[in-house]
């Protein structure tokens, strides 16, 4: 399971739904993804429900950042705000200094409910092709992108099957392959490896690090698995609950390249996972 070396990222149509904000200049210090005092309240009036009150963190270009936090804290809500699916109630999320006000063209999102995010009337390959249609790629490139994405997640053999013919873990990998074929600059994944077996999980984690290296992709991953977060991330954002807030951003200083066996057996690995774990365990 390894991605074939693929051509560099194509220049994408940057005419996005993002508001142009002349006052914010893109400089060397502008983070790729900037979440500042973000708040999200569902509903209004009596029935309103504040999920996120004041969330601030950044992700730099080419970084892998993991978000961990208790179930129901609002991680999915946060990702949907970043993907431009929900408007923020206050504060803002920005890409390269431009406020996100609709789905940004350089971003792909792997949804948590993978089985409800694939089109059941399309075969695996056609699921991958659907988001690419409007890019009007040459047929050869279209095929190459799908082939390499399917190979990367180990599903080359399943391209003619329907999602509902596959196991949960395979469906999740199809959803990941769809995002890979889209070749986003920023990849956001919501508990992407939750229902795959341990071996596949390790493979997908390494795939994640590989595409970051190959494409200089910026990757944000929500996970429940603290070991996974420490293994993958350059930084781990630990969320505390009700309403969601950042408890701490833990810098992970483990050497690159990471390796499932050697990295996980480093004393530093144990120290950092203990740090994250104790943050989560601590009564809020």
């Amino acid at each position: 399971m390894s991605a074939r070396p693929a051509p560099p990222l194509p220049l994408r149509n940057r005419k996005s739904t993002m508001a142009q904000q002349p006052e914010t200049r893109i400089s060397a210090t502008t983070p790729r993804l900037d979440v500042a005092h973000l708040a999200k309240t569902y509903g209004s009036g009596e029935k309103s429900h504040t999920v996120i009150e004041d969330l601030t963190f950044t992700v730099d270009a080419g970084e892998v950042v993991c978000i961990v936090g208790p179930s129901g804290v609002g991680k999915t809500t946060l990702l949907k705000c970043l993907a431009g699916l929900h408007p923020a109630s206050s504060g803002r999320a920005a890409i390269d200094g431009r406020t996100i006000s609709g789905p940004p063209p350089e971003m792909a999102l792997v949804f948590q409910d993978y089985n409800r995010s694939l089109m059941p009337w399309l075969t695996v390959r056609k699921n991958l092709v659907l988001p690419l249609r409007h890019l009007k790629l040459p047929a050869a490139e279209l095929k190459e992108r799908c082939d390499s994405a399917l190979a990367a997640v180990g599903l080359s053999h399943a391209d003619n099957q329907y999602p509902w013919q596959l196991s949960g873990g395979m469906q999740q990998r199809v959803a990941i392959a769809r995002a890979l074929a889209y070749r986003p600059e920023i990849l956001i994944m919501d508990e992407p490896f939750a229902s795959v077996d341990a071996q596949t999980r390790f493979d997908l984690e390494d795939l994640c690090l590989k595409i970051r290296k190959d494409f200089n992709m910026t990757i944000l991953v929500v996970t429940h698995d603290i070991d996974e977060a420490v293994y993958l991330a350059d930084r781990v954002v630990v969320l505390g609950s009700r309403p969601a807030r950042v408890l701490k951003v833990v810098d992970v200083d483990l050497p690159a390249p990471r390796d499932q066996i050697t990295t996980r057996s480093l004393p530093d690995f144990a120290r950092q996972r203990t740090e994250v774990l104790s943050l989560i365990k601590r009564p809020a």
Partner: protein
Amino acid sequence: MRNVAIRNWVIGTGTPVLLLAAWWFLSANSTDPFFPPLETILIRFQELWLFDHFQSDVLLSLGNLFLGFAIAAVVGVAVGFATALVPPVRWMIDPLIHFLRGIPPVALVPIFISLIGFGTQMRVTSIALAALFPTMIATVDGIRSVSNDLMDVARVYRLSRKERVFNVLLPAAMPQIFSGLQVSLQVAFIVMIASEMLGSSQGIGAMTLLAQQSFMTADMWAGILLLGVIGFLVNILFSLLKRKVLSWYIGSRRMARAA
């Protein structure tokens, strides 16, 4: 698995054959003017429908049926989409839908029959109008029940409006649209017959009613038999189409049940 399929097929075709045989033998010596022997009916059936009136009446009726149904299907789906997606259209059509929802589609047939004038055009129009509503309502319901998750996917991957309509909403709503089409087909069939009985001198319905009124019972039975056969064949055609278009849905349902 194979054996069950064969058994079902034998039962499915065997029962009608048995019933026909029973009819044949029980009516063989009948002198009752209202229940002529099946043999007589079949002879009239062949004489009437297979050659004489095939083009003038049978094809005419079928043509009206398919034209009316096709118009109803296309317009029903289109109006359904507009109602679900365009707010001003929704404000106009929604009250009508709420009103119609409580009424069985067949109960609306008298309204459309009273609209029937003379001439093919009017008949096709009334078939189309009557058959429109079940498809339209099913389409609206189908689009409204498309999951938010799928629409979120469509937005994240920035599908165009056209792609969202034709590549996401339409296929996702297709199972419900098809159940609407099925009802529309039944309604179209009923209105087709009724329109000929009431406002025409041509067509299977008109011939059948005429036979009844002139006490040609065998001819009447031959007409009823023909309508039955046509209804049966049309339903089979529809099922085949459905099985082809919705194979993904049938497969996924079977999978979900097995799990």
